């Protein structure tokens, strides 16, 4: 069938980290030890020989990585949480509205039943559907290694195209964020050829919070329009401290286009993507502002 590799299924996190630690040295072939979560990307890439592996460390038996916790407004999902787990959890609609919206248009049912949110983040595709929502929620990743764990803001995680902060001996064990407060709106829209089973042309997530008629927090996260999913920070800066008038929203949407750097590919031209960043950013900001100021 496809490439030769070994597969181990550790029963707990420490065992998994011990095995992965073999990958953290400097010798040749170390990069060949890879964690396997849902495998919906990795197995395809191994078969196509885009990725080489000597050993896969399957995470499916590690109970500590499963589960969703909420306490005092803080949400933490274990790294084993699947897209279907997000859709099944009745609390998620309030705890992460944009993430739920992205899960609904993520691939198809069978992939959602298997693929994990953490895996989607770690694969580092610029079109990864869960990443704009998580960026719009200021999510943080917990990375564990044999020497202990560290927390990395998702906004600092991506270093370049399919490059990220995770060291070879580390595992992402969880993703956390503060649930949006009642004065905030959090929205996502995926533009693609179809609703299901399609790779994103442009994905936009926004968060807008309001106090006393002024925007206190603005987040705009753009997918599939740069080497990594990124925040449109200059566009966000235009909004904070201001009332979101149609003129200001228009200016922010134009700035979001400036903050993006799309390419032509099989799914769309760079021009179309710029147009879509403008249209979607304007639309989502308008909807979000209406939601937080008119309660609708």
């Amino acid at each position, binding site marked *: 069938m496809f*490439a030769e590799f070994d597969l181990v299924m550790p029963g707990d996190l420490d065992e998994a980290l011990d095995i992965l630690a073999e990958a953290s040295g400097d010798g040749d072939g170390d990069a060949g030890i890879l964690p396997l979560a849902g495998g919906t990307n990795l197995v395809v890439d191994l078969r196509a020989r885009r990725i080489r592996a000597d050993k896969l460390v399957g995470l499916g038996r590690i109970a500590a990585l499963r589960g969703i916790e909420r306490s005092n407004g803080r949400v933490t999902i274990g790294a084993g949480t699947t897209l279907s787990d997000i859709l099944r959890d009745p609390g998620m609609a309030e705890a992460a509205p944009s993430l739920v919206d992205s899960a609904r248009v993520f691939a198809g*049912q069978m992939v959602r039943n298997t693929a994990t949110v953490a895996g989607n983040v770690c694969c580092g595709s610029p079109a990864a559907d869960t990443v704009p929502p998580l960026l719009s929620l200021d999510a943080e990743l917990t990375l564990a290694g044999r020497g202990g764990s560290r927390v990395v803001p998702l906004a600092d995680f991506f270093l370049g195209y399919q490059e990220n902060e995770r060291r070879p001996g580390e595992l992402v064990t969880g993703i956390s964020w503060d649930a949006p407060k009642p004065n905030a709106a959090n929205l996502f829209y995926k533009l693609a050829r179809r609703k299901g089973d399609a790779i994103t042309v442009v994905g936009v997530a926004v968060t807008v919070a309001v106090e006393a008629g002024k925007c206190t927090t603005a987040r705009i996260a753009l997918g599939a329009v740069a080497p990594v999913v990124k925040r449109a920070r200059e566009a966000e800066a235009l909004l904070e401290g201001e009332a979101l008038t149609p003129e200001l929203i228009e200016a922010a949407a134009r700035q979001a286009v400036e903050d993006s750097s799309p390419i032509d590919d099989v799914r769309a031209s760079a021009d179309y993507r710029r147009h879509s960043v403008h249209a979607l950013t304007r639309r989502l900001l308008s909807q979000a502002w209406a939601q937080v100021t008119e309660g609708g």
Partner: protein
Amino acid sequence: MPENNTITLEINGRKREIPAPPNQTLLETLREHGYFEVKSGCEKGDCGACAVLVDGEAVDSCLTLTGTLEGRAITTVAGLKRGEELHPLQAAFVKLGSIQCGYCTPGLIMAAQSLLNETPEPSEEDIRLALSGNLCRCTGYTKVFDAVQEAAKVLREEESAT
């Protein structure tokens, strides 16, 4: 996984110990052992032809490494059959003409069963969402959605009769 790479799976209600090389997918394992009702399509997780249930939840068997499944219960479309009788989903697909070439049918039925395991009374939107990972180039899906609704009704009636 044991050194010799054998794995215990329950397939369609029957416990089996079978060899599972680390790089073998569940699709390959099943077809190698005669479960030809599981179809190979795109082998990329796009088409859903290879869908089977693992502990009641549909997965693409082409994306699932067999070695990750020790002790799990696998159901193929043939495993739904009740003795000589068709399962309500199978019967509804036949009755309503939801099958043309038939290649996608096993996967569609397993995706639908996975939905009905969790959602006995699905809306059309629920059905569309649940079948969004199954490509069918013949039927246009309308009769497929009808069959899932019909089967859901039959299954609910069976449930309330017991």
